[in-house]
């Protein structure tokens, strides 16, 4: 398959990119790593008139501390999640999730901002922004704004991003000494989209969980926080009974879609197994 013909514009600044988008009557797409967009173009699932290359916009790059947050530029590539010391120290959940994102060739090009903007419900990083209580910085024709991850993912491939808007950075609250995290996924093959995946971040006092955010992916139309399961854990010690209660709560939290090879009941079962294993690790990882 070959893409339909399109025009190409390389933007040097955010303003240039936004302006080009507006001038194309919004029949345009921003391209960064292109790891999802290029196949979609080749398959002619998308055929915009204009591709706006944002990979040379300096403002979208870099990882740095800003107040209580780590600011991760939208162009930060998946492989940098593995190599960047600031991420390993202050957003270790992203560091832990990164090896599960596809394969090295894809990680070398794919970007954090692109992954969050696409909001593939089977992707690791969008779900982790939920677990991390991250904020997504968006630039648009009417200026810049920050949206909480909780409010960002709306429906299947639908987010708070409006046409012509661009993710500029993701703000992740700095990892603290009293926090623990866990991540894993159940994928048929290494690097595949998972049948079920999960990441979690807990704030603890000794053995007691003061707060926990648990986010699943590959379980529905959007990355999904499981608030019922979270509620069973908050204020408690992580023992077998609490873990079982959290697993049971998933039935209310998740409504997995029907697929031709993984029935909803099986996905729910796998989610329970994965949650049990991760909470077990969280308990051990004191």
């Amino acid at each position, binding site marked *: *398959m*070959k*893409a*339909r*013909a399109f025009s190409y514009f390389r933007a040097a600044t955010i303003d240039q990119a936004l302006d080009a988008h507006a001038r194309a009557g919004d029949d345009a797409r921003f391209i960064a790593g292109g790891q999802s967009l290029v196949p979609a173009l080749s*398959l*002619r699932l998308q055929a915009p008139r204009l591709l706006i290359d944002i990979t040379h916009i300096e403002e979208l790059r870099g990882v740095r501390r800003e107040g209580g947050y780590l600011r991760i530029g939208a162009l930060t590539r998946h492989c940098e999640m593995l190599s960047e010391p600031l991420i390993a120290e202050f957003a270790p959940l992203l560091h832990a999730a990164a090896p599960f994102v596809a394969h090295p060739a894809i990680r070398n090009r794919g970007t954090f901002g692109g992954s969050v903007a696409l909001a593939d419900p089977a992707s690791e990083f969008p779900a982790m922004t939920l677990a991390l209580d991250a904020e997504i910085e968006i630039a648009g024709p009417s200026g810049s704004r920050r949206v909480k991850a909780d409010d960002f993912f709306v429906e299947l491939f639908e987010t708070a991003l409006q046409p012509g808007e661009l993710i500029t950075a993701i703000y992740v609250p700095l990892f603290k000494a009293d926090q623990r995290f866990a991540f894993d996924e*159940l994928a*048929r*093959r*290494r*690097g*595949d*989209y998972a*049948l079920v995946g999960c990441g979690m971040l807990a704030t603890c006092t000794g053995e007691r969980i003061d707060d926990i955010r648990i986010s699943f992916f590959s379980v529905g139309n959007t990355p999904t926080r499981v608030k019922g399961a979270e509620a069973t854990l908050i204020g408690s010690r992580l023992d077998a009974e609490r873990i079982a209660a959290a697993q049971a709560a998933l039935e209310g939290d998740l409504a997995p879609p029907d697929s*031709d*090879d*993984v*029935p909803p*009941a*099986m996905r*729910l*079962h*796998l989610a329970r*197994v994965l949650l049990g294993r991760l909470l077990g690790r969280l308990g051990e990882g004191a």
Partner: protein
Amino acid sequence: MSAPLTSLDRPNSYIGRSVPRPNAKRLLVGRGRYVSDLRLPRMLDAAFLRSPHAHAKIVAINTEQARALEGVHLVATGEDLAKICTPWTGTLDHFKGMTSAPQLPLPLDRVVWAGQAVVAVVAESRAIAEDALELIEIDYEDLPVVVDIDRAREAGGPLINPGSVNNTCFRAQLDNGAVDDAFAHAAHVVEEEFSFGRHTAVTLEPRAIVSDYDPAADALTVHHATQTPYQFQDLYSRHYGIPEARVRVIATDIGGSFGMKLHVYHEDMAVVGLSILLGRPVKYVADRIESFVSDIHARDHRVRARMALDAKGEILAMDVLDLTAIGAFSTYPRTSVVEGNQVIRLMGAPYRFKNYRATLEVIFQNKVQTSQYRAVGHPIACAVTERLVDMAAAKVGLDPFAIRAQNVIADDAYPQTSPTGYRFEALSHQACLKRLHEMMGYEALRAEQADLRERGIYRGIGIAAFVEITNPSPAFYGVGGARISSQDGAILSLTPSGEIRCLISVTEQGQGTEAIISQIVADQLGLAQEHVKVITGDTEVTPHGGATWACRGAGIGGETALQATRVLKRNILEIAALILQEQPSALDIIDGEVVDAVTRNQRMPISEIARIAYFRSDTLPPGTQAQLTVSHHFAPQGYPFAFTNGIQGCSLEVDVETGFIKVLKHFIVEDCGRVINPMLVDEQLRGGIVQGLGAALFEECRYSETGQLMNGSLADYLVPMPMEMPDIVIGHVETPTADTVLGAKGVGEAGTAAASACVLNAVNDALTPFGATINSIPITPTKVLKALKRF
């Protein structure tokens, strides 16, 4: 079993040595020349509009806008191509009663599977051709879709081919011995229904073709990524009415084939027609999605089978029903019934029982065609037989090794005829079984398994014995009327510099054909391998032959090369004897030097003989005509097939909470007769095993009820990757065939033949404590969790 030593076994022989392939570096550094790399002057690109319906009437096709698009040179429908191409029918005479509807490059009035090519566009570029596809309108009228095999077999149900009485393509029955009697008196009977998913080849390089028709010479040159250039030369000639001598098929570098690239594909046939209509070169390369919906699929069998045993575990009889659905047509020219035919004939092959009955039903349905793919029929026959043997072992109370040791045909009992009628020259089941037992460290593995079970870790151990069909004679296709050769030809020349050029009809798809042919030639002539150049895959220069399929390259192509080299060597020594005033029998060639046959003293280099023969023939005795080019053909005689055998073992772990399976280690002991290049043989075994593990655990073409392929991409159709693959331990037993001097048999399919059976047995072994069983491949987490009733 070991054969007596021959000249092939001498210490410095190239036969039996792991030399690297001469073409490996070229391919590795990106200097390969694949069909898709080819850019001919004035070349155009083709693209196809495909049917979204699995079964529908074509009411109207509107191509007006597409024709008007700038850069479009031709829009062709079924009607346009039917005017220049005669139809083909995928039947063979020796499959009595077989039917299949005639096929054309593009359909005239009806589509019979989702993804079938309907209209072709030829344009300045593939992108423009695809733009034009979007402008074509086709009105379809839905017809009843028949996907499910049971529905297809229903009396009075919808018919795939109008005018036929039912959806049956072929039916066959075998009945040898006294099967009913054996079951009536059996102490134990085991019975099971098995299902085998459809899968497909997934070659690294997809199908690719450049057809170049020259109207001035009425000559057709087709650059075609195929295993079988001669077969296609014949077919293009006959279906397009161009004399065979003016049709040239060139198969250059090919990125994997596995049987998939030896069938006639509608698009490929169409591309030849498009280039004839345009008088220009036309290229078509299938993209991955097109490959999934148009490459042949394979397997898709449902087998009901039972086995009778006496009280001691002696196998008495097997009774088998194989149902297989093959798509809407039988594939041309090799048909889609060979797999089923081999399934029912390979059942029980390693064992010595005599009572056997089988029924095969081959059914049409609205899916893409199935046909021959690596290890045709073997994995199904092997999985059914070996699972029944394991079930029987459990019932009788024997260890899997013990029941096999008790029932395999003894190594000293050959020749033998299988219960299904195959004639075996010499196999080595006992030796292989014994060797595998040692290699696996079987007792220790069992002890470890028991320990781990106590800790809630469930490991399984499975073994599977197999027999593989190789070196086919004309009994395979020739007797059925197909113009598919079972012989090979070689042309060998001594060059003026004293090197050897070998043109041979067997072809190279990445398995190392050229490497082993050069080893054989170098060995037999007495020359360093780097001085042998092997040329394959061009019907204009290489002699006609069977090329590469059914594990015949080493056994038949190798023997052809061996015999041709011996003729050339004799000719060289005759000239040398004249020059040296010796008897030819007193001379030999070692390392490119003519030597005294007894003392090994060097007499003169063969380059000197070449120099004299080519440039100073005046110095040779009057009347001497040096024959330094020889041509030679070899057709297999003796046994109709050279059967090989072996046994595989697998150790794996089942996560009983997630249903995930991790293969920990895989083992094979294999007997392919004379091993020419151990490294390449091991690569073939490993590659074959990986494909078998793919079938066992991952690969399946899943269809919706409306006949849509649900997972036609590499994100959804899972093939095994390095991370999922275990270490594979390989052992060899060598029982050369006495039908040839070389003694080599095939090895390309042995790995695939038994790997899935092995995994099936190992998974069932792991699930024993739960009383759960699985008899369906691929073994997905879904099936495991269902068997364990986890959801």
